[in-house]
């Protein structure tokens, strides 16, 4: 069977898709309760997808809470959302997409057994991931300074008396205090959803460091690609969550005065 590979390395027999019944060559990482490599690899992939399903449902609860409260308190959510920086959020989106791109390239490098490229791509994935978290920290810090972290210290004054721009016009509609209180719910959802997302990224970066160490040793460049592949699934999933968080949190209504 044909495999599209942009490399000159010959394929080993066990990489063809046809199930060779009498030619079972096992890699060192073969587990004995599996009959073939194929079975082990597909089982691993399937298992990781099932785990991602649990993540969909976990974030799903938060997305529903967002859906509900955005509709109930739209008037509060708009000015609250406008507190977030679209340039920073957009940059973060591009950074995370780039990180995912490098992760996908890493999987390719493992499949075609190029050890040095694999390590490079994993490092780039990590670097961009860290950049994402760095910008997130900057954003969180800004919220801290402006007293927009939900809890006892939350300050609604900016929503009750919106700051005026250079021409003296208000930048947002002024909210009555009881409506302004509801901005706290927006910020709670912002911190809960991006925080949960960031937690998953931190765990992912931890795993990446471990994978880089093992990739450097050559563990993944002689046919055993499952950990890279399955981690890639996890990393892309975390990326997808952000692809939804960005428009939902940052882009609710960018022209509220119209």
């Amino acid at each position, binding site marked *: *069977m044909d*495999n*599209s*590979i*942009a490399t000159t390395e010959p394929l080993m027999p066990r*990489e*063809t*898709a046809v*199930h060779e019944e009498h030619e*079972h060559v*096992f890699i060192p990482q*073969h587990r*004995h309760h599996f*009959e*073939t490599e*194929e079975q082990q690899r*597909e089982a691993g*992939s*399937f298992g990781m*997808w*099932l785990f*991602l*399903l649990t993540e*969909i*449902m976990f974030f*799903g*609860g938060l*997305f*529903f809470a967002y859906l*509900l409260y955005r509709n*109930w*308190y739209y008037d509060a959510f708009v000015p609250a959302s406008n507190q977030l920086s*679209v340039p920073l959020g*957009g940059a973060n989106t*591009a950074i995370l*997409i780039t990180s*995912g*791109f490098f*992760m*996908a*390239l890493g*999987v*390719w490098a493992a*499949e*075609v057994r190029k050890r040095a490229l694999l390590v490079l791509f994993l490092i780039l994935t990590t670097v961009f991931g860290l950049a994402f978290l760095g910008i997130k920290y900057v954003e969180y810090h800004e919220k801290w300074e402006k007293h927009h972290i939900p809890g006892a210290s939350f300050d609604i004054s900016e929503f009750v008396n919106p700051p005026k721009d250079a021409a003296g016009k208000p930048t947002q509609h002024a909210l009555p205090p009881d409506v302004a209180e509801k901005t706290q719910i927006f910020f709670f959802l912002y911190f809960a959803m991006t925080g949960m997302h960031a937690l998953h990224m931190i765990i992912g970066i931890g795993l990446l460091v471990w994978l880089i160490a093992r990739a450097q040793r050559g563990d993944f460049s002689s046919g055993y690609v499952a950990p890279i*592949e399955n981690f*890639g*699934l996890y990393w*892309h*999933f975390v*990326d*997808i969550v952000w*692809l*939804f968080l*960005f*428009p939902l949190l940052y*882009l609710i*209504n*960018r*022209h509220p005065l119209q």
Partner: protein
Amino acid sequence: MAHDTVHEHHYHDPANVTNPEHAEHHIVTPLQYGFVYIALLIGTLLTVLAADQNFGFMNPVIALAIACTKAVIVILFFMHVKYQSHLIKITVACGFFTFIVLVTMTLLDYISRAWGLW
């Protein structure tokens, strides 16, 4: 690892359970990944630009539509699902189906409350 006798099986596998669909080890090329990457960046740009226009109620619709498209191409290409077995494809679909059930059936309650703020 020792290739012990346990693995030297001589049976025919009529039900073909060890690799039911002979899923191909299709290796996606860096070029294909590159196209997807560019598409994702363009999508992000479009989302931001569209947000700056006033399409009324269509704004969130457009934003979500673009986000869904991006998610689909990440799943199909970055996550290889296009080249995987039917089992994996159905599994992904089940995940999103269950999420949709959670959202729509809970909405049933909130939408129809007379006293709510919907």
